[in-house]
């Protein structure tokens, strides 16, 4: 339990550092990729919802250290995006397939950015923040979801190649009724 927690924490810190200090040096629009969000989506949909929520909380808190946004916006948006895709996954999707992951990944990426904007708007509305809201449609709603989906696809196929879960299973004559 503790070892599992420490491994997850270490992995999360590495990913966070890559996100803030490595990816950010890359040219636009590649730098718009959100690794923390991508991993949280993958874990929520493919591995375990509870673990995905912990990832959203941990990853969000890490990003809060470096973002200028009002404290909590990033983490709340991440957690709410994970809750939404879990609701959709539980009620409208039949299995943990590649297509489910892609659709839910797209929904989560768009929801996350929408929630960040919404929280910023609400803070301005209730005069809790005077920071002007900057909105870049192409960056937040086109490029970031696109790169998130590319990385999700890479993680999906890497994960299933290494865990062997993607192997085709055929009915053998012996197994037929």
């Amino acid at each position, binding site marked *: 339990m503790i070892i599992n927690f420490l491994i997850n924490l270490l992995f999360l*810190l590495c990913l966070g*550092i*890559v*996100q*803030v*200090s*490595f*990816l*950010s*040096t*890359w*040219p*636009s*629009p590649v*730098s*718009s990729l*959100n690794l923390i969000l991508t991993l949280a989506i993958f874990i929520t949909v493919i591995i375990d*919802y*509870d673990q995905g*929520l*912990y990832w*959203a*909380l941990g990853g*969000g*808190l890490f*990003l809060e*250290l*470096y*973002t*200028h*946004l009002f*404290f*909590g916006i990033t*983490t*709340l948006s991440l*957690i709410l995006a994970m*809750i939404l895709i*879990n*609701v959709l996954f*539980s*009620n409208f999707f039949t299995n943990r397939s590649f297509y489910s992951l892609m659709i839910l990944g797209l929904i989560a990426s768009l929801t996350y950015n929408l929630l960040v904007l919404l929280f910023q708007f609400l803070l301005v509305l209730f005069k809790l923040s005077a920071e*002007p809201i*900057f*909105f*870049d449609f192409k*960056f*937040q709603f086109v*490029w*970031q979801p696109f790169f998130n989906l590319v990385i999700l696809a890479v993680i999906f196929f890497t994960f299933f190649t290494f865990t062997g879960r993607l192997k085709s299973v055929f009915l053998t004559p012996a197994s037929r009724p």
Partner: protein
Amino acid sequence: MFKFFKTARLSIILLAVMFLLIFLHYLNVLLPAENLAIWLLAPIQQRVYAAGARINNLYFAVASQSELTKSNQRLEQEVANLTVANAELKTRLEESHELLLQNDFLARHDYTAIAARVIGKNPEPTRQAIILNKGRQDGVKVNLPVLASNGVIAGKISQVKANSSEAVLLYDSRSRIAALVQNDAKSKGVVFGEHGLSLKMNFLPQTEAVKIGQIAVTSGLEANIPAGLVIGKVQRVEAESNSFFQTAWLAPLIKLDDLTVVSILKSPNDN
């Protein structure tokens, strides 16, 4: 009933934890932990950032070579290998050279400054801002100018934590800086960042001649920002006959994307 409610317990607990953390954050209870985390991670981030910048530079170097013929490919590979092998040494040399230039400039103008390393960039895609490894404990304050090179201004401090700070770069859309063009009339205006891509100087009087190639510098009208810090060179001028003002587009004299060391100019009142 939605299956969601079966798994809602943990979601509600985590949201409650998050609201508690927000509450504690604004009571400054979490501040020591946040500062400790930044302090612990800064050395790792510094190395990761330098590696990222090097790979980025290498990528552009390799991409630009794609037009060369096959006969040059072997040589290019050797150059790339040598670039990688010498990258760390080069980075250190460049940093030292940069620091020497900055120190020389500061000494000549009798300014005092805080040397800082860039440890990351703001993760938000719409914000062009760098994260520095010096903060409140080192004397950094909001709105202090950040110098990139020999008297060239890179941006302004926008946020300060105990041992780190954030500087908004000149071409960020939120950046505003009082400036003047070095022409006969010393035309004054305000330099705005444009979508993280370019610099635009507004409010230049129509009656004053602004020409391509003239240099724009800080006007000294802003508190904490001395006059004469170089912003950029006039690249294009647009003057409409029905307007009081003309607009100039500036080209920065240095590349702001791959800064590794900067100087934060202290306010004269702090000396």
